[in-house]
């Protein structure tokens, strides 16, 4: 991995959760880095710390100790405002439960991050149309989330994550609620976006279908990295 290319660097990150009067250590001495354009994923059993790691990388949470640099920002010391700004400009999230905003239409859901960015009307329209074309949902722009199938909803969530062409996309179990066919469609879509946009993708999953698409597999167990290997893609 080219050192200049590194956009995420975690060093000796520890994450403790307060439980009652004590602590639970969810990440232990966690060190890893990701380069630009990677298509990587955390795998491992439930409770191994995948979501915790992803949340810290995504600046939704802060490490208890250690350093975490993401796209030039130090997540350990970043303010709430700066973190929001970082997420707004540079990071796209895809959730297991889609998390579309229920009262907005498909178009408005995809528009939301662009509104936060303060982009002009015409600029937004072009980007939204482009994103919805990529996920193949141009015929659903006026639908509400409740009217979509799971696969369609997740495609909208993907469109919302990629519409601002962020440097980093974090996907936490994106296929857990999808059937086999939809899972493959969505994964192929993400591979395509990874190639076309050059965005870095980091997954958290225990879905073998997702794992088969990853170029780099990081296995976690009990809050530690137990293996970190590239995966050859058969074409």
């Amino acid at each position, binding site marked *: 991995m080219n050192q200049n290319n590194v956009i995420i660097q975690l060093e000796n990150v520890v994450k403790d959760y307060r439980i009652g009067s004590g602590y639970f250590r969810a990440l232990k001495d966690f060190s890893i880095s990701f380069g630009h354009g990677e298509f990587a994923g955390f795998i491992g059993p439930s409770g191994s710390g995948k979501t915790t790691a992803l949340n810290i990388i995504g600046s*939704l*949470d802060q490490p208890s100790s250690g350093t975490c640099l993401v796209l030039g920002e130090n997540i350990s010391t970043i303010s709430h405002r700066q973190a*929001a700004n970082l*997420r*707004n400009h540079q990071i796209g*999230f895809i959730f297991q439960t889609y998390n579309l905003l*229920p009262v907005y239409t498909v178009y408005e859901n995809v528009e939301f991050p662009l*509104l936060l960015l303060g982009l002009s009307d015409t600029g937004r329209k072009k980007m939204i149309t482009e994103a919805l074309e990529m996920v193949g949902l141009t015929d659903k722009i006026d639908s509400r989330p409740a009217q979509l199938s799971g696969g369609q909803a997740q495609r909208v969530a993907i469109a*919302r994550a990629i519409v601002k062409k962020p440097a980093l996309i974090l996907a936490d179990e994106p296929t857990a609620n999808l059937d086999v066919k939809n899972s493959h469609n969505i994964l192929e879509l993400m591979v395509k976006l990874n190639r076309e946009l050059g965005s870095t993708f980091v997954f958290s999953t225990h879905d073998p279908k997702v794992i088969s698409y990853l170029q780099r597999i990081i296995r976690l167990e009990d809050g530690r990295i137990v293996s970190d290997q590239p995966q050859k893609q058969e074409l």
Partner: protein
Amino acid sequence: MLIFRLAFKNIIGAGLRTWLSVLVLSFSYITIIFTQGMYRGMSQQITSAMIATELGDGQYWNSAYDPDELFDLDKANGVLPAEFDPAINSGQAVPILFYPGSIYPQGRLRPVIIKGIPDRQQVLAIPAQFLVVEDPEIVKAVIGERMANSCKLAQGDLVTLRWRDSDGTFDAVDVEIAHIMKTIVPAADQGILWLNLHQLQTMTGLDQSATMIVISPELTRRPDLPGWDFKSVYYLTEEIRAMVKMKSSGAMILYFVLIGLALIAIFDSQVLSIFHRRREMGTMMALGMTRLRLILLFTLEGAMHGVLAMLLAFIYGTPLLIWSIRSGIALPAISSRWGIALSDHLFPHYTIGLIVFTILLVMILVTVVSYLPLRRISRLKPTDALRGKLS
């Protein structure tokens, strides 16, 4: 602006509950504006009628006159000051003599206050021209409609009037009801018998005397007169103002109930938002929204209730208000309950100030109530919110 758009979209997409709150709030707007307009209209209508038929532009009271001490009404008068002769002669002031007496319609005793007024006066809207003396033997009287009804007297009727003259001896005469006048002012109607001033002075032996001098706005000079106290219109209408104020604050209870209902519903839906829409809040934070903007967004969403209610109230309230201004509100039944003789139609008086004040009041209350439950967002962690957990 973005926050406004988002808040508007959120509330428009919200359900029946929201619209119920909006409906109740719009009722509150209309009720407050309508009833307060009515009280103002009522106060205005009564005041202007009192000025026209009773108060003029102020009154000089003989120092012996005390409206709360009617037992000594026969002594509540004094010889008119000569300084007032020019004003009285030129029609800029009118002397009125009050005297106690009783009439016997259908043989039943009925105490009255006899008010003597010159037959040629222009200051008050009392039809004194009916009191012109053609035959000194005949005493003519003008009474109000309510008085006529309660005594069952009609125009042309004769009724016996008894009074005690200045020597203390009783006198009696049959007076002819020359005219029945319509007025909403009780002081000119109920228990009042209007006679010609000169005739009353002669009957009572109180030549050149009066109880009060009512002045017209044309008389700009208000000199100090020993033995006579000037009472301004403001002073004389104090009771009316106090009464309208009391009535209108009585209506506050209704406002509290209406606004309270809506506020409780809004508060409730904001509390529910904190619980049910945490994941939505977490998602917005993940997309790059700060907590501060999130609080702003949800506060504004709550405040939108007030805005929508305003629009709704505008849609159905405007025709209502315009109709009430144009044709007035028929109030024959209500007027007696009010203790004031109102005319058949009440014309409400709405002011921009009243409308703006009402809107501001409701908007501020709605905004505060919307904000209060949201304070805990300032401690909400994005990860907890996304998990649907409350920190």
